[in-house]
């Protein structure tokens, strides 16, 4: 079976700062991989290189067996196959929630509006936001906005979902509703790579935990291995700050 995503020797620098220094990572279908690590360890940059929002300086990104880091590959077509959810939701403030959710279906995949809206409403129904379909994002709470953003990302059935610290901007009481939705997506078999600071959630949901440290993968394994019995001193040091 071909892996959904395979990264080989990814390097990326911003100016003289080397953010990613040779990352190898394979993500199989229906797997949930959690990227953990301190701020600045390269988690967000890695997610951006996967959907080509950043071009890599070296290495290859394979999506379903095709090298998408090849410059002749049409980046828009690759991005259409990958869903992304951002820390600050990034909903479009001038569009209703439903229009946010159906934008890609209608304008990237060319679905007729009724088809796209039926699917959009079905998804919003599922997360309990159908009543807000015609509202604008600024009428929603942070948790509701982030759940709408997740639905926007999955509305076109992407092969891979990238979650970039999606609970970091939320009030603590709103985190649960967002994480519950991610749990449901996992149950549906969605392939997910997520950068997160929610260690308990990573332990609970992830099939594999990857600890990034200064642009390299310092340690990876099942949650039980990484959280229960970390091998590297850096990992132990990082985790000890969370367990206090």
């Amino acid at each position, binding site marked *: 079976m071909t892996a959904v995503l395979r990264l080989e020797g990814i390097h990326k620098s911003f100016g003289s700062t080397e953010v990613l220094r040779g990352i190898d990572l394979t993500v199989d279908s229906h797997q949930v991989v959690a990227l953990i690590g301190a701020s600045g360890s390269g988690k967000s940059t890695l997610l951006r290189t996967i959907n080509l929002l950043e071009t890599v300086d070296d290495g290859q990104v394979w999506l379903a067996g095709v090298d998408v880091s090849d410059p002749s590959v049409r980046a828009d077509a690759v*991005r259409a196959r990958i869903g992304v959810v*951002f820390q600050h939701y990034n*909903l*479009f403030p*001038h569009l209703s929630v439903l229009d946010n959710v159906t*934008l890609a279906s209608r304008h990237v995949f060319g679905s007729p509006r009724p088809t796209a809206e039926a699917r959009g409403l079905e998804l919003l129904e599922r997360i309990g936001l159908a009543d807000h379909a015609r509202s604008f994002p600024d009428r929603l709470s942070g948790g509701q906005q982030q759940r709408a953003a997740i639905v926007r990302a999955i509305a076109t059935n992407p092969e891979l979902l990238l979650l970039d610290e999606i609970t970091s901007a939320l009030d603590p009481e709103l985190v649960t509703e967002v994480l519950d939705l991610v749990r449901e997506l996992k149950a549906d078999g969605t392939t997910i790579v997520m950068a997160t600071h929610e260690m308990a959630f990573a332990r609970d949901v992830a099939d594999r935990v990857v600890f990034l440290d200064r642009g390299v993968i310092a340690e990876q394994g099942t949650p039980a291995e990484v959280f229960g019995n970390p091998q590297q001193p850096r990992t132990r040091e990082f985790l000890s700050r969370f367990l206090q």
Partner: protein
Amino acid sequence: MSSEEARGPSDVELGRRAFRRRQGFRSVLISIASTLALALVAWITIINTPGWARVQQTFFEPGVALEALPRVWDGFLLNVRVLLFAAAGVLVLSIVIAGIRTLRGPIFFPLRALAAGYTDLFRGMPLIITLYLVGFGIPGLIGAGGPRIPSEVLGTIALILTYSAYVSEVFRAGIEAVHPSQRLAARSLGLSHGASMRLVILPQAVRKITPALMNDFVAMQKDVGLISVLGAVDAVRAAQIETSHAFNFTPYVVAGLLFVLLALPLIRLTDWYSARLRAREQSGAIV
């Protein structure tokens, strides 16, 4: 809401409301008094200037005004037509120029350079010179044998060229004021550069720059009067003709007042919209 009605305001709140009402009433009285006083001072000063009687006769002669009005009005209608065509042209051309200036990638360098050169040139060039260059240059290019283009059409072209240079910069500023994360979100959905621009960036940019756009429209409203230098019989030209008939400048004042009357509703609308936008921003709304 209903619970508040059932409860009714407290005595303290009633006292505060009564105080605010008294204050409001007093401020209205004061502002009326001060306005009247200022108007009186201005009036007395002006009518006591030595030349007032002469000026009143040459600029504010009701009989001349009434006689000039029909022809000036006909000319004014031409100004309004030119304004509408010019505004539509400016809107299209400026969005195209702004779009070109935000294109990235080396392939687009010549286009970008051309667009930048265009905005530099026409923002620097006085409108009246553009009017002459277009008004006499284009017929020159066509030659004596070709069709004759009406001067109001040439004037409209010159206005579009000049104002698009300004307005495209306003659009560009608006496009750049939309947070980069919005572009990122649009591109991550698989939307192309053009589609992101059209569906996500421009709609938000337009909301941000509407007051500035309306302001430019007001400015253009009076500059349409300049097409008279090409010989189009607009309000200004008609006023000039009437003035030379009557040996009195009143027709110019008539034309000027018509332009002010045209501009006033939009000026008020701009103010109202800007205030509303400010209020929404302060209440924490994004757009």
